[in-house]
């Protein structure tokens, strides 16, 4: 039967050649799109290229640079251990070619960096080596070069179904599912991790955050996280119960702190510097389950060096969040707190705004007047020292004076 088919193919090939010669189509033009433009220095950098999913326990060591050559998933049952000081670089790509590291449900990441040896996730374009904090060749604005770090767990989410697909991962990859019934789920440990230049474009309204936490449970430890120059959000929570401490987000292309699907945990001590979108994009439940989170002890820089954030805080009619002890500085005219006024589940406590002279605090709250918890003030609220030395933001002097 195959021979018969082969004969048909040959015959049809002849017919096509004939048809093309009489047809008006332009497809017979010289196709030079596949020509290769030679490059000068095709140096072999010695990176360890990782392009398939991690299905058995694996350790990445700081003496090597690991290059993400694909969407790499730490699958159910496997643990990826990353030594302090290790540098991981994502190859460039968008859409189907976007590189990212995904910790799937049941998989674990043990990335325990230290203040002297943070673990750095960056782009292949970054010439950074283990031991360096600042990029020797890239600026903090360069983004969208690779995907990001995505951690998915089995903690409850409030979505249209018990488990849904994470943003940024195509529907065709079931490793992108998250959500479940285990509030204490443990996806591992993330300490002293800096994530840079990510946020690859997947499609309209669809890209990868610096750190994505989908249904991550309270058994997971996440502290001392930096996200620099991510094309989408800095850190985004989709439900889950995980608590996070010490987060610094610099130059996010969209929102800095983004919460969805009734995340019920706490973010404690953070610095946000000039996201292009909302400084805080705080959404509520999307399913029948409700849950509230707390965001406290932080300092926000709403404009700097020509970068201006879209607004200061953004909450909806169904948001459930407690905002406590946050200071916002470098506010420009037009930046406001946008909220649904009569939502009893959003509370503002000790929020201070560094308002421009000659203006009133009510000018900074859309549909004012400002609630009692929002007042004018000039003092930073975050513990800046938590970011000293190990974060690029601090080393670059961006936290000076906050």
């Amino acid at each position, binding site marked *: 039967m195959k021979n018969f*088919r082969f004969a*048909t193919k040959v*015959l*049809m090939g002849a*017919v096509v050649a004939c048809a093309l010669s009489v*047809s*008006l*189509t*332009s*497809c017979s*033009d010289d196709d*030079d*799109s*596949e020509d290769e*433009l030679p*490059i000068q220095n095709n140096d072999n950098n010695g990176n360890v*290229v990782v*392009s398939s999913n991690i299905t058995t326990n694996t350790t990445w060591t700081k003496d090597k640079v690991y290059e993400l*050559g*694909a969407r790499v998933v730490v699958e159910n049952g496997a643990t990826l251990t990353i030594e302090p000081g290790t540098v991981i670089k994502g190859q*460039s*790509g*968008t859409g*189907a*070619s976007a590189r990212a590291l995904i910790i799937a449900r049941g998989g674990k990441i043990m990335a325990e960096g230290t203040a002297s040896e943070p673990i750095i996730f960056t*782009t*292949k*374009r970054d010439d950074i080596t283990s031991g360096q904090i600042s990029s020797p060749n890239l*600026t903090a*604005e*360069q983004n*969208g070069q690779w995907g990001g770090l995505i951690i998915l767990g089995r903690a409850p989410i409030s979505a*249209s*179904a018990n488990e*849904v*697909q994470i*943003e*940024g991962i*195509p*529907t*065709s*990859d079931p490793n992108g599912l998250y959500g479940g019934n285990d509030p204490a789920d443990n996806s591992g440990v993330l300490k002293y991790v800096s994530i840079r230049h990510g946020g690859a474009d997947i*499609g*309209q*309204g*669809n*890209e990868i955050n610096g750190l994505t936490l989908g249904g991550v449970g309270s058994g997971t430890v996440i502290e001392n996280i930096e996200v620099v120059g991510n094309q989408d*959000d800095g850190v985004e929570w989709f439900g889950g119960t995980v608590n996070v401490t010490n987060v610094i987000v610099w130059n996010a*292309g*969209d929102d800095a702190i983004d919460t969805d699907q009734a995340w019920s945990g706490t973010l404690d001590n953070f610095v946000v510097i000039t996201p*292009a979108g909302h400084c805080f994009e705080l*959404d509520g439940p*999307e*399913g029948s389950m409700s849950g509230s989170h707390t965001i406290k002890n932080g300092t926000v820089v709403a404009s700097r060096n020509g*970068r201006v954030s*879209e*607004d200061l805080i953004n909450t*909806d009619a*169904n948001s459930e969040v407690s905002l406590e002890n946050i200071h916002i500085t470098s506010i420009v005219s037009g*930046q406001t707190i946008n909220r649904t006024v009569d939502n009893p589940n959003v509370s503002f406590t000790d929020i201070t705004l560094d308002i421009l002279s000659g203006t009133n605090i009510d000018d900074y709250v859309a549909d004012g007047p400002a609630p009692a918890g929002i007042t004018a003030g000039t003092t930073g609220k975050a513990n800046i020292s938590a970011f000293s030395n190990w974060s690029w933001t601090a080393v670059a002097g961006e936290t000076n004076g906050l």
Partner: protein
Amino acid sequence: MKKLFFALLLVSSVSVFAQNGTIRGTVYEEESGQTAIGANVVVVNPLTGTSTDLDGKYSISIAPGTYDIKVSYISFQTQHIKGVVVKSGEVTVLDDVYLKSAAMELGVVEVTATATRKSEAALNMMKKKSVAMMDGISAEKMELTGDASAVDAAKRVTGVSIEGGKYVYVRGLGDRYSKVTLNQVDIPGLDPDKNSLQMDLIPTNLIDNIVVSKNFTADMPADFTGGLMNVETKAFPDSKFMEFSVGTSYNPSMHFNKDYLTYDGGNTDFLGYDDGTRALPRYSNSINMPSPSSGHSNQQVNEFVKSFNPTLDAERKTSLMDYSMSFSYGDQKQLAKNNESSWGKKNPTLGYIFSIAYKTDYKYYDDVAYGEYQRPTESSDYELVQANLKKGEQSSHSVLVGAMAGLAYKTTLSKIRLTAMHLQNGESRSGKFFVENSESAVGQSGFIASSNNLEYNERSLSNVLLHGQHLTEDRKWEVDWRISPTYSTSYDPDIRSTGFTYTPLDTFFSAGAGGNPSRIWRSLEEMNLTAKADITYNYELFEEDAKLKFGSSFNYKDRNYEILKYDMQFEWNQDWNSDNPNQALDPSVIFPNQPNGSYYYNSNPFLNPNAYESSVQNIAAYISQEMSLSPRLKTILGVRMESFTQWHTGRDQAYAQAFEQALSSGGDLRNIQAGNSLNDEVVLESVDFFPSVNVIYNLTEDQNLRFAYSKTIARPSFKELSFAQIIDPLTNRYFNGAFFEYEDWDGNLVETRIDNLDFRWEKFMERGQIVSASVFYKSFDSPIELVRIPEQQTTAEYQPRNVGNASLVGIELEATKGMEFISEKLADFSFSGNVTLVRSQVDMTDREFNARKNYEKDGQNIDDRRPMAGQAPYVINAGITYKNVEKAFQAGLFYNVKGPALQIVGTGLYPDVYQEPFHSLNLGVNKKLGEEGNTTVDFKVSNLLGDRVESFFQSYEAEKQIFSSFNPGRAFSIGLSHKF
């Protein structure tokens, strides 16, 4: 004896040839509706004549004058036709001579030659006598309705409705269950989203007739369930013709409109193809495409980015009107005189036809909308929540060029024709939209953005048909064979979409909101080979005519499909002067320049997961027996075997990424562990037997009762059995191939097998009047539907899946009736109308039922059954025709509507989408001018009611919300054609 008679004729008819005129016509047996082969056609004085060939046709060359003609045929009454006028150098066509059976009445039937009637009556006769249920439309009717393409003409047929102006649906069943063939040959569909041929590609002046069969018989392909539409192109023109026609159409809301959107294309756009202006730039499909991370120098990257066409914005220009022109020429030549030459090659005749058509139209829709809506979470909230609403304007300019040439040769017992056809269609589209994304919806981030879309679609189809028909001398055996290769392409070169995101303080490109600028190149190439042979044996069984028919067919198709996508990135902080999209590729901001530093990333792995090659092979054989069990009861019993195999080469993203990595790192390419890949592997294979039973019972002379049972099949398409993920750049909706396993979906898409039952009563009256009523039932095993993937909340994604079993029951009423029964004054008016009512239901899968139950609203009681996707609950066609033969004037008013069909199956959060009925009311007027009626003027108004084409999200107790909506406007067209 007969031989001697004809020999005499031959001798007597050799004379003056040059000034002669010609009499041509077709002879039918009234009993069977079939053409009479070998009937004697004799001019009484001077005695000359011939016999009809295998098409029932004859041709007599004779000096100018007025003649009486006698048509005789064994066991039929002889018919006299008096007063046939023959003019020098002209052809007098005597069509539709029906011979009555001699057993019914003795004597000679006399008729008078009247104005030429074309084959409308012949089609009705075919319909009356055919054992299988069928409906048709002839060239005559197309002329009357002023229909410009096969698609316009097809919607006049009972139970037929048209979607998107391109696709034919029968009895409200979806495209999946309809099939279109050209000259009984499978033609590849050009749209990867559809199964069947786009009918708007075929201009009417190439069409001889269209026949729609609603019942499967063993000699037809088994993969249709609603209807099989066959378009037959012209072969032997009855008389020499040279016709030139021009037409123009004016739509007040679209034409001479200064808001019309367009963009600079190539110099050959007016011929329906791109001259290379939109071709992929050099190096764009290389393994290491120049980008800041590729290792190329800044200068190299800069030059590469500049090689992309910098136009990203649509500009406004005043639109023109639609116009069309066509030229056709054809004739037949007798290669020997009346009945001359040896018996083996009697009446050799050569027919030829040539036609070329050009058509262009401009469309401008000033309020197009695409929406995404969700159900609210709370069971006490009913109104739908807006997730995304895209509103704006859209323009298109379409060019269609068609050329066909045919050469045919026949003798009394043999016919061979060769037809070649090429269709070329180019459509340039430009759009400007505003996108309003609402953060209060699930999975949405909330933004306001613009969207500028520039697209070009280039389609072509080249088809060659070699067709032979042969009859044995005793006329008992007939052989019909066809070989037909087709090559078709559909290219979308350089679809550009660019949209700024607006915040209160800034305007910029935001990947997380309105998206970064992107461009797409899509290509589809398909080749197709069909070869088939049908053999018929005519004999007598139980003292009645019987037919044994058997045959075989071979069909092979191979499709190559590829999508290449390029996304723009910005190296530096963005800083724009305005929201003009052309800024994005202004040389001053292209990488490595600051600010912005725009460049492209290649989103296409070396092995593209969005590319596939698929092929199918279908080998079929059948046998059927047509016989009369009594003089009034005829049957066709048959069975068809189809051995079907589909191969696929493609891979998913994970495999593609791993392969690329192995390639660049020197890994083992044959041992890629990640993902899934198919390399020319069988993905669908089956051998099926399709039985069919058709019974026709003559209640009375003019009334039939029919019954039919058959098994048919609906197979997944190339695209459905793939790993492709295809984005619609306009709506940002994704199609996912069925191979992806997801939750309860196992990635194993299988064929749908259908049982069909039909009953019909019909009454035929004089002058083509008909009344009929049908009841039909169909049951579907594992129907395929397009399902919204519930787990994906960020983007709207769909996947074809087998859903629960389904069934439908329908009734169909049809009437074509003159109006003289109301009043004599209305004798020139006739009414034709048909109504199809269908009730369908699908048993939901548990998952679908539970998902719906989760979003059940207070007071709602969700059933575990729903209508079938794509099935309209009713289809109505109605028309009133006025025809005045003396004044050569015809007019018709036609109405067509298809009831609300479930377009997309929602789940839980996502409501169902229903197509809103489109009330199409069209007026056509046609007048022949000049003594010979050689000039025809026609006037047409379409969409008289000014209805919109819309689909809506619908949910319990909630206001319906837009899925898609546009206004086609009212169009006035006028056409002029002249026969030389």
